[in-house]
């Protein structure tokens, strides 16, 4: 997936859409829109790791009149060399051949080592009984299995870790993940990075897409087109 930060307006539709599609309980956000400074994803600077301008969203960085701001939507980065897959003691977190990293709800023992290992802080643990804003299931609404392994269920088991599945059930049907579908400004492009003719592959190759925290070598399958990329091209 490629996310164009030039287009992102920070509306959180992808995050809320994700919550609905996946019936995420209160306090769960598989997908968040962080308020950042332009260029923070490129890894050229450490600014993403320094203190933010504010604890609140939508606050620009810098001092007036030299202020700048960019939005950084962050969900699971589906790393090629995923730390969570390496540390999971029972192989509950695994990488599919197509590159998606999934969690088996029936295998996870709830040790949360993956949460300690993830550099992006995208994993959510089911600490207690899930609380829902409505008393019916929304979104996909069914269990979904790959190779017999339960990788999505609308009824969350207590004590397991969960995260973005890249809407594996929708990809299987040939449609885009829900965050891509709902983005009102077309900031998200989904496709097959292995196919050099795909739009995502061309954006990555030619438009100067970057990865999040690239120096860690996790090699995410989610790429960002930074706001100031003209300077790089």
């Amino acid at each position: 997936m490629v996310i164009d930060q030039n287009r992102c307006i920070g509306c959180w539709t992808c995050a809320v859409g994700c919550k609905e599609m996946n019936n995420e309980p209160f306090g769960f956000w598989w997908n968040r829109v962080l308020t950042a400074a332009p260029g923070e994803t490129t890894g050229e600077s450490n600014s993403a790791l320094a203190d933010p301008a504010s604890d609140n969203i939508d606050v620009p960085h810098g001092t007036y009149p030299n202020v700048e701001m960019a939005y950084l939507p962050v969900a699971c980065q589906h790393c090629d060399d995923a730390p969570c897959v390496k540390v999971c003691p029972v192989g509950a977190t695994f990488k599919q051949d197509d590159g998606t990293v999934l969690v088996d709800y029936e295998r996870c023992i709830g040790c949360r080592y993956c949460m300690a290992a993830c550099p992006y802080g995208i994993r959510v643990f089911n600490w207690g009984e899930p609380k829902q804003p409505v008393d019916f299931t929304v979104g996909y609404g069914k269990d979904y299995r790959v190779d017999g392994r339960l990788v999505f269920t609308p009824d969350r088991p207590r004590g397991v870790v969960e995260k973005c599945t890249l809407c594996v059930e929708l990809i299987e049907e040939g449609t885009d993940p829900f965050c891509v579908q709902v983005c009102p400004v077309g900031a998200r492009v989904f496709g097959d990075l292995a196919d050099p003719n795909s739009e995502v592959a061309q954006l990555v190759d030619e438009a100067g897409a970057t990865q999040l925290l690239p120096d860690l070598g996790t090699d995410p399958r989610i790429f960002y087109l930074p706001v100031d990329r003209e300077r790089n091209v």
Partner: protein
Amino acid sequence: MATRVETPAPRTASFGRFGRGFLVAAGLLVIWGLGAWIYQLTQGLIVTGMRDVVSWGLYIFTFAFLVGLSAGGLIMASAAEAFGVRSLRPLARLGVLTAAACVLVAAMTIIPDLGKAQRVWELFVYPNWSSPLVWDIIIILVYFVFAVVDLTVMSKRGIARSERAKWIRILAYVGLPTAVLLHSITAWIFGLQISRPWWNTALMAPLFVTSAVLSGTALVALAALAAQRFDRFKVSDETWRGLAVLMATTIAIDLFLVACDYITILWGNVPRERAALDQVLPGGSWQAVFWLEWVVGGIVPFVLFVVPSLRRRGWVFGLASALVLVGVYAFRIELVVGGMIRPLLHLPPGIALGSYRPGQSSFETVGVYHPTWVEYAIVTGVLVFLSLLIVLGYRWLRIGTRDEETA
């Protein structure tokens, strides 16, 4: 042949009034801890103070602490043999007993931390060999079995003195590397994580080995003091001196290693590394652990051990050993919390907490962790259970009465 006539004291009579009181109080605290765990099982880990930012807490501090505690005894007993440190030999059996008890209880401490404790068997059926946690479980099992075998060889009756001495020496050569490996692997659970700059240092394994020898020795010293006070167990002045030297030295090495870590981060001034350190240095939100580690559990016991007129008093020695344990526990807190409190992507609104708090944000940019009574109750139960194991093992193996034989 070592055929000593034992004084076959009836076992019930071997606990005095104080001893029986201890057993009852300890039993009640263990039951209280068990009750808290059952409550946690019914409610989920929501009853703890852990959330998605600081997602490991008291259970993991205690796990890492107990693994460390298990070192001292075995390393002491093995070093006594392998390097011929005679002064430490009288503590060999007590040491190996604490090692076995600590590592067993450490493994138990992981259980309440699991969200799905009933799936713990999967660790043995579906192990993922790239996970340091799997390596750790294997080395914990190996270490426990080794400690039990060592203890059996040291305690079993009807073995010729020369035969026993030979086996104890052979086991000592195996025991030292096993102990070093146990602490290194436990360190690598943290030290190998690229996502946590605070953990990701090659110093982690040396730090764990050092603090393990330090805290383990302190535990053996406390156990020996208690045995001297409440039983016929006798420890010579020379042995106390040996223990004091060992602990003073390891305090110094331990603080040196921590200081190396601090100076590397401070001088480099890389924001992602400074962020974690600033939380634990004076002025940070977790500065208490700094003072506990450096002053209360570092410099103070160091002075108490080094000044001869002080360390010769039993209560000073006991106090200093207890302070050492406080300091090493503070190091474990500093390690785990420091690593987790400041996520790498430190941008608003922060990380989703995974729980709903009416009227409050569901996000945190800097983690907050306050352990709850459930966590305190469970950890207290675990620690009291450990002391019960050591006391009962001490009685059962008659460590107080038969030590001269193995010495």
